[in-house]
């Protein structure tokens, strides 16, 4: 009796502590997100419902009365859907091929997939204009090969927009697909084959269904984030191109019509949230910790994350008939076809760099490709310009600091999400990755109004906050992936040898996770460094990031200067990656996942 009375509170205490740990781990990121993201967005929605201080639906009535808005929304949805389908079609073979590669090669290929993310949108789109234009290299090649008799119109129409957007969105599709495909146990497909199933049939019956969660997750991510695109379509699109984010940014940046912008942003955001919630289980698939070795019977999961999900079944059923007919044909061409598609996709991703690098060494006074001659004049002109150098150092410092902050708050959050079970797990995860999807111009304008009147406008701290908000989702996603691959037996071994949890964390877990930490930090850094939208609202005399100076220059004159920045950026990136490889090499016992899959 006495024993029990002592034990009870103690058990209660430990239980309470176990509950407290994830709360403490999540607290910093939740505070930062509340201050810099949730509250400002909520204020924006409230603002859209007000006019001169009183409640009013005027902005919404105006939208409802505008036939143009509906058309623009429909067009945006159609574009996002098309981009999603194209991404899926070309990302699947690529992700499949990568999942068949040894880990080191896979890591390199995944890096190539992320490259487009790492270049400024301005230089990337200009490279596409050069590549795809009627007298550009691609058309010249096709003409010379006799494939076409006159140049194809590939830019300033929807083709250009598709290519430009697919290139940027591909990582969002490849990563979830790769994650599930890498987890599909190859022995299952082999087993099916050994039992007489042709390879394609095995693929259709085993691999494809088990990768469905990745398909849904990738499609949702690509679709939602495509809704907020505007710079790429504006630069690569034709005379008909006009999307909802263009309308919003026009109202914010040019007209200064904040009421209507707030209303349109709210509608866009609510659409995004609705789609997001419908597919929340699949998006949160990353959190699911069942081994995806087999087609686990639906509905038996205990994690609480994978509940019954009939659409998948229905889709598989619908796909089944045609797929059987297809499989005969596919069996023959499967192998080569797969690799040709994967190779072409990689080419698509790399091509713009083939243009950007020579442009940086151009000696022409304006952008022209191929450069008439080569020189370092644009490098030296950059190095002589103190304004640019100041802006560069500002961006390096604050994007760097924000990357560290993102890691500092994102890593504990990832630990909490992967290692603990609690009721708010999925909602918190969705909140933390949602800045990937809500258009930046919406976040920026809401943050601006939230900070308005405070001394934070024009203060570097505002940049630290906003870069952290857009960077932290990447650290969370990257860390979750890293932690899930992490082999916990090492930690258990340390613990069984008497090491305390904190010591284990410091001496075993963190060192092993160092490469992942480095990737997480690199992503967060790049997102901040390349941002142009927040700068428009938050900059001031002592806070002028580099992309602001770039925009300023590009507006009136496009010079090879921006290509120089892109090349410098690639150099910095290469150095960071070398550093990561170095870290990889010096810390022994690296890459436990290699031990798992020899």
């Amino acid at each position, binding site marked *: 009796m006495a024993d029990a009375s002592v034990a009870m509170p103690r058990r209660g205490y430990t239980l309470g502590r176990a509950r407290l740990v994830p709360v403490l781990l999540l607290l910093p990121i939740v505070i930062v997100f509340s201050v810099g993201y949730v509250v400002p967005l909520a204020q924006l929605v409230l603002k859209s419902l007000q006019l001169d201080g009183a409640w009013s639906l005027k902005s919404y009535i105006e939208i409802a009365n*505008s*036939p*143009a808005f*509906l*058309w*623009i929304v429909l*067009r945006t949805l159609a574009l996002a859907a098309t981009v999603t389908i194209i991404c899926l079609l070309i990302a699947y073979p690529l992700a499949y091929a990568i999942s068949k590669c040894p880990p080191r090669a896979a890591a390199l290929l995944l890096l190539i997939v992320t490259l487009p993310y790492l270049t400024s949108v301005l230089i990337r789109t200009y490279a596409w*204009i*050069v590549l795809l*234009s*009627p*007298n550009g290299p691609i058309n010249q090649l096709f003409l010379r090969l006799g494939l076409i008799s006159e140049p194809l119109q590939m830019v*300033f129409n929807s083709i250009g927009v598709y290519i430009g957007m697919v290139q940027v969105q591909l990582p969002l599709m490849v990563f979830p697909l790769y994650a599930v495909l890498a987890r599909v146990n190859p022995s299952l497909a082999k087993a099916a084959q050994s039992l007489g199933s042709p390879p394609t049939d095995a693929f259709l019956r085993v691999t494809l269904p088990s990768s469905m969660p990745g398909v849904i997750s990738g499609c949702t991510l690509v679709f939602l984030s495509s809704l907020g695109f505007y710079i790429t379509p*504006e630069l690569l*699109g*034709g*005379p*008909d*191109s*006009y999307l909802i984010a*263009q*309308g919003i940014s*026009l*109202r*914010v*940046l*040019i*007209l*200064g*019509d904040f009421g209507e912008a707030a209303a349109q942003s709210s509608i866009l955001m609510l659409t995004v949230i609705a789609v997001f919630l419908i597919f929340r289980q699949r998006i949160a698939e990353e959190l699911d910790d069942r081994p995806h070795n087999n087609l686990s019977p639906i509905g038996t999961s205990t994690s609480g994350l994978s509940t019954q999900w009939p659409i998948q079944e229905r889709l598989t059923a619908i796909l089944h008939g045609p797929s059987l007919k297809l499989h005969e044909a596919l069996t023959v061409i499967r192998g080569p076809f797969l690799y040709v598609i994967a190779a072409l996709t990689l080419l698509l991703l790399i091509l713009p760099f083939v243009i950007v690098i020579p442009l940086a060494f151009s000696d022409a*006074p*304006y*952008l*022209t490709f191929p450069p008439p001659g080569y020189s370092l004049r644009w490098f030296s002109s950059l190095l002589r310009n103190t*304004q640019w150098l100041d802006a560069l150092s500002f961006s390096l410092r604050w994007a760097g600091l924000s990357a560290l902050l993102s890691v500092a708050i994102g890593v504990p959050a990832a630990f909490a999400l992967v290692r603990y079970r609690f009721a708010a797990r999925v909602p918190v995860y969705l909140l933390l990755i949602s800045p990937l999807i809500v258009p930046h111009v919406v976040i920026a*304008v809401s943050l*601006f*109004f939230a900070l*308005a*009147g405070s*001394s934070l*406008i*024009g203060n570097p701290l505002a940049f630290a906050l906003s870069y952290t908000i857009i960077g932290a989702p990447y650290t969370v996603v990257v860390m979750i992936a890293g932690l899930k691959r992490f082999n916990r037996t090492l930690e258990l071994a340390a613990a069984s040898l008497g090491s305390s949890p904190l010591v284990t964390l410091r001496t075993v877990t963190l060192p092993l996770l160092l490469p992942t930490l480095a990737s997480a930090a690199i992503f967060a850094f790049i997102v901040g460094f390349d941002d142009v939208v927040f700068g*428009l*609202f938050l*900059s*001031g*005399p002592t806070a*002028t990031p580099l992309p*602001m*100076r770039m*925009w*300023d*220059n*590009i*507006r*009136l*004159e*496009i*010079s090879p200067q921006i290509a120089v920045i892109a090349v410098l950026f690639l150099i910095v990136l290469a150095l960071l990656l070398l550093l990561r490889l170095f870290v990889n090499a010096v810390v022994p016992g690296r890459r436990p996942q290699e031990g798992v899959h020899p």
Partner: protein
Amino acid sequence: MVDVVRRKLLRGTALAGGLAAARSLFPAPALAQIPKGTGEVVVYDGGGSWGEAKRIAYFEPFEKETGIKVIAQPRTDTGAVRASVLAGAPRYDVTIIPGGKAPTFERDNLLLPIDYGYFDKADLDAFSPVKVGKFTVPAIIYSLFIAYDASKFTSDAPNSWADVWDTQKFAGRRSLMAGTWASDGGTFEAALMADGVDPAKLYPLDWDRAFKSLSRVKPNILKWWNTGAEAPQMIIDKLITAGSAWNGRVSAANEQGAKIGYTWNQGMLQYDTWVVLKGTKNADNAFKFLAFSARAENQAKFVQHILYAPPNSRAFDLVPSERAKLLPTSPEARKLQFVQDYEFWNTVGANGKANNEVAVAQWERWISGAR
């Protein structure tokens, strides 16, 4: 040889003499009127060669003369500037906004009235064809005109907006500024002129007729441009053969070896204007800066670096004639063009919307096929 040198020397002295004469007309105190100051002034930079020209002609000499530090800040779009004033933390002390957007800033009480106390009267009176206003000091005058690929159209080149619309006569794709920029882009005026409207009778704009005309040219439009650099770049890249462009960019590209033709005929004179934003902490320094930048000799120096016309017409006397010829307000160019009617663009209609906003709403409807 000696002769040439002597002539050059003579010309030099003549110029110096001219300057001295100009100065003597306005007694020295008028020029030394701007007293020394302290602190700083945050000014819009503009980037590229425009920012460079400002730095050389205005920022550095102003710092030297007054001791006030100029902090040059890059561009933020007018909407973000507006937001910054509303938020009580103006993005700049002094900035430049398009003349067509300035009246809404005035209307919404976002600007400080200019204190002309530091200005030289002779400079103030010489602003032409655009006068200074209670809240605005014109900064640059430029032309939105017809530009074309001079390597393609050598003898017979487009000389009117109707020619730009006519792809039978002048083959190739076209580009005009996106209608979402409303007054800034001049696209609606161009459409009406292409349809035969006399430039003198453009305003008030006939929206229906403008969109009908735009529907005719749309199949030949490669894309609608959004930034000043795009149109010349598309001509350089041989993507379009003709379209609208701003003169400053075309001349700058040509100085660097591009072959872009242009005509002043039916060109629209537009202007940007300096304004002092409400809530600034450096108003006095801002007024001093404006007085300094209004001086004829400073504007003449500015024109040496970029071909935007000086709003102070006295500056023309100090600009070499070969260069003056290239400016959109030179007598020959001036008579072929008209000044865009910003008053019309800011007139508020029955629905409470200014024409600038009406144009955007109609454009969105037209471009989405719902008009």
